[in-house]
């Protein structure tokens, strides 16, 4: 693809008139490949906006099925989708929004054996996982493959977002070296989550991904954005590369991917 169809010019006109995007930037978006970890609370808004923006190829991995308790925030899925694969439901929703987008669903659970092969051809990764084993797996795989990663996470009324550019800025392990002890951090399932919270956090992640692809603006590299929705407070905390980081420093000890044990039932629809 090297030129737009008339329909595309109309569809993306509000992008094309932005000097920071333009025809060139829109073409970059149409040629971009983004991989989303999770089609849940964070993955839903992120995938919606990325598909609407015309990201050419979107991979979306989720091994869960839609549950009634997901519908309060996981807006990719409808009541009719209850019991169906989230990844397949996501594909249908996104492709009906924008036929320019090719959506590749992955229904298997990501692990040390499959993740490298699955994500290697994508340009940017967006982490909307709901459990720590997957978050560490995704961080480590992105470090090994030097892929930029948008990290987002939510809990009750609080969200955190950062953008990881491996070796250039801090990674997830620079901040949180190892997963928290099993069972210590409750999941959304156990502790609840405000439905609209992931809408904000996932949309911020999508914004970061679009900027990474366009190469425009300032990204949240070396910054952790903390959103407190109850008090409507946004705070940015500077984070630094950890000279003792177990994976991205000179003293790295982790040389291969780790499958951490599941601590709790966190992955079920949180």
């Amino acid at each position, binding site marked *: 693809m090297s030129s737009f169809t008339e329909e595309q010019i109309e569809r993306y006109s509000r992008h094309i008139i932005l000097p920071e995007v333009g025809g060139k930037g829109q073409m970059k978006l149409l040629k971009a490949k983004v991989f989303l970890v999770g089609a849940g609370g964070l993955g839903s808004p992120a995938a919606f906006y990325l598909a609407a923006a015309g990201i050419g190829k979107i991979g979306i991995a989720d091994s869960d099925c839609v549950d009634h308790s997901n519908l309060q925030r996981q807006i990719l899925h409808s009541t009719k989708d209850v019991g169906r694969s989230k990844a397949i439901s996501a594909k249908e929703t996104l492709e009906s929004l924008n036929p320019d987008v090719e959506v590749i669903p992955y229904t298997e659970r990501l692990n040390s054996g499959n993740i490298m092969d699955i994500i290697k051809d994508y340009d940017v990764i967006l982490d909307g996982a709901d459990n720590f084993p997957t978050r560490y797996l995704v961080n480590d795989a992105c470090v090994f493959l030097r892929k930029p990663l948008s990290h987002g996470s*939510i809990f009750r009324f609080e969200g*955190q977002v950062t953008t990881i550019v491996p070796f250039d800025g801090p990674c997830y392990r620079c901040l949180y070296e190892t997963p*928290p*002890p099993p069972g210590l951090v409750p999941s959304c399932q156990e502790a609840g989550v405000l439905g609209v919270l992931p809408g904000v956090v996932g949309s911020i992640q999508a914004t970061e991904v679009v900027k990474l692809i366009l190469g425009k603006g300032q990204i949240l590299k070396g910054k952790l954005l903390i959103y407190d929705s109850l008090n409507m407070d946004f*705070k940015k*905390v500077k984070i630094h590369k950890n000279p003792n980081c177990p994976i991205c420093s000179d003293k790295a000890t982790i040389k291969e991917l780790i499958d951490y044990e599941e601590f709790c039932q*966190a992955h079920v629809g949180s």
Partner: protein
Amino acid sequence: MKITLNGESRECPEGTTVEKLLDLCKIDKNRTAVELNLQIVPRKELSARVLKDADILEVVTFVGGG
């Protein structure tokens, strides 16, 4: 002595360790990352690190939902 915790200045007794400060603030050390003067303090060193006047700390809590 005075330290800065998450952007806010506060008094803190001499000899306070990072762990003690977290206790005083009712923050669970197992659920946080602590950055002291721009360097991450490994979890196992929290009880050994004594705070000094004008130290700057950022404490962020593990959030994992999606």
